[in-house]
């Protein structure tokens, strides 16, 4: 008994409900997720300014006491220096090995490229703790003692995937024509690399290096096996601070680390378009 106009009206209403409910569900879950995503970072920042002696939330008052307490904590500073050294060496080695390998991999369609790709990327998926244990067992079998060098070697293994991924992405986007043009015009391959290729893939290399640095600086699972008492790294020191007695000083270090990461991120976004690589790759 319904005439065509009412049918059209009811479908239009249904359409509206359908669109509204879809938008509502998507937005509410997304907002909730973004809230949860940011919550722990905010909480750590707030509690690092707590004036209480124990860790409770919300804090009863605010002070800088935990930041000041860090000055009388030499073990922490030496761990931070070790972490920084290890991350720096790891990044440098990753850049040299990774850029060379990426150049070869981007320029070839041969079968070995797929095998190499799988080999280089696999540390991302394999349990770090197994990799760490394996390298430790291997070194002790060869009679090599633990040092900063063994730590750096193990970090290179787990950080190299980031550098290869972003550098390869840059090289593939670049194509071969510019490099061929340079060669045709008589430039030597070395000259072409330093004056044409490298400046053009700079962004990819910088982003990869940044990721490699952060990964190395933050690593616990591999460092647990490959560092000894003299080469204690910062995340392990922090881990034991939190695990044993919930030291509030850990909140202050966390606050500093969050600030450094945020500043570096904004800087990287300006310099190399960090998100372009992370979101696309």
């Amino acid at each position, binding site marked *: 008994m319904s005439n065509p106009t009412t049918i059209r009206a009811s479908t239009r209403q249904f359409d509206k409900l*359908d*669109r509204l409910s*879809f*938008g509502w569900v*998507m937005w509410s*879950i*997304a907002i909730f*997720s*973004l809230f949860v*995503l940011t*919550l*722990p*970072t905010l*909480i*750590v920042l707030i509690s690092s300014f707590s004036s209480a002696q124990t860790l*409770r*939330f*919300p804090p009863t008052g605010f002070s800088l006491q935990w930041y000041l307490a860090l000055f009388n904590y030499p073990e922490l500073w030496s761990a931070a220096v070790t972490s920084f050294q290890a991350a720096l060496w790891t990044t440098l080695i990753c850049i040299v090995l*990774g850029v*060379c390998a990426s*150049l*070869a991999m*981007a*320029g070839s369609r041969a079968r*070995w490229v797929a095998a190499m790709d799988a*080999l280089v990327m696999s540390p*991302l*998926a*394999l*349990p*770090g703790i197994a*990799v760490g*244990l*394996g390298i*430790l*067992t*291997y*070194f002790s079998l060869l009679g090599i003692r633990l040092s900063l060098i063994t730590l750096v070697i193990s970090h*290179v293994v787990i950080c190299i995937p980031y550098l290869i991924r972003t550098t390869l992405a840059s090289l593939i986007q670049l194509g*071969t024509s510019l490099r061929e043009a340079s*060669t045709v015009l008589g430039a*030597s*391959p*070395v000259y*072409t690399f330093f004056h044409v290729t490298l400046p053009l893939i700079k962004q990819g290399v910088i982003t990869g290096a940044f990721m490699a640095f*952060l990964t190395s*600086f933050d690593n*616990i*699972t591999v460092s647990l*096996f490959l560092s000894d008492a003299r080469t204690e790294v910062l995340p392990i020191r*922090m881990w034991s601070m*939190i695990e044993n007695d*919930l030291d509030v000083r850990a909140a202050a270090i*966390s606050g500093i680390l969050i600030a450094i*990461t945020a500043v570096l*991120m904004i800087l990287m976004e300006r310099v190399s378009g960090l*998100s372009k690589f*992370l*979101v*696309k790759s």
Partner: protein
Amino acid sequence: MTAKLFAPREWHLALPLAIFLHLFYVAPLAVLLASSFQPAPDAPSFTLAQYWQFFQDSVNRKVLLDTFWLGVQVTLACLLFGYPVAYIYANVPAKWKGILTFLILLPLLTSSVVRTFGWVVILGRQGLINSLLQGIGLTEEPIRLLFTHQGVAIAMTQIQLPLMILPIVASLAQIDPRLAAASASLGGGAWRTFWKITFPLTLPGIISGCLLVFAITVSSFVTPSIIGGGQIMYMPTLIYQQGVVLLNRSFAATISAILLVMVLIVVFGLSNLGQKSRDYIR
């Protein structure tokens, strides 16, 4: 010959990295696998005794199952909470993208100890959730959230969420916007368009996100060991305990091998699915 060293087609440019990885990655993993079959230097060169020992103990079997279950839970939760974020990211105006990128990437790039520490403050006895619940008067006693499987799963979900969001964003960016318009003009509603068009087309992104999240969740050590606090045991914590605390390295190698096999089975299964979904899209 040396002049050609930087020519892009020279395969030997990949040699230094290949040699490095074989020396310090492939060989150590081979040694690890070998030692899992050989408990002691004087033992027979190949024995399954340690694997037998692992599976005979019901505690170990429970650890293996718990680890697998944690991986599945966290992966599904990340998909449920991450997909809408990726969807919104792909559909907001460009000026909002910068802020969203920052919100998504900052947790990914901050140290894992820091993120876990945040969860300790949230879930602890005097933490945010318990203060809230007691403030409203819902509970008298603080409820136990730390040192539980649920606590670990919640914290892990937040920590792995960006790894699910990023591949889905990449996959959504490749969808032709005309497809959704076509669906709408043919009478497809918002939900129908999503389930029939958008969702299937982002399957490669979803699968690579799931792959990353599962593999990293079952291998992670820091968050489960702090939030689980020794009471809740997962495979990486068990490996650490056997290998570093009890110095039983060859049994730790056996556990590592079992964890490796679990990860590899899931990774191969998922990447096969991913290949199929990619073929389906073309």
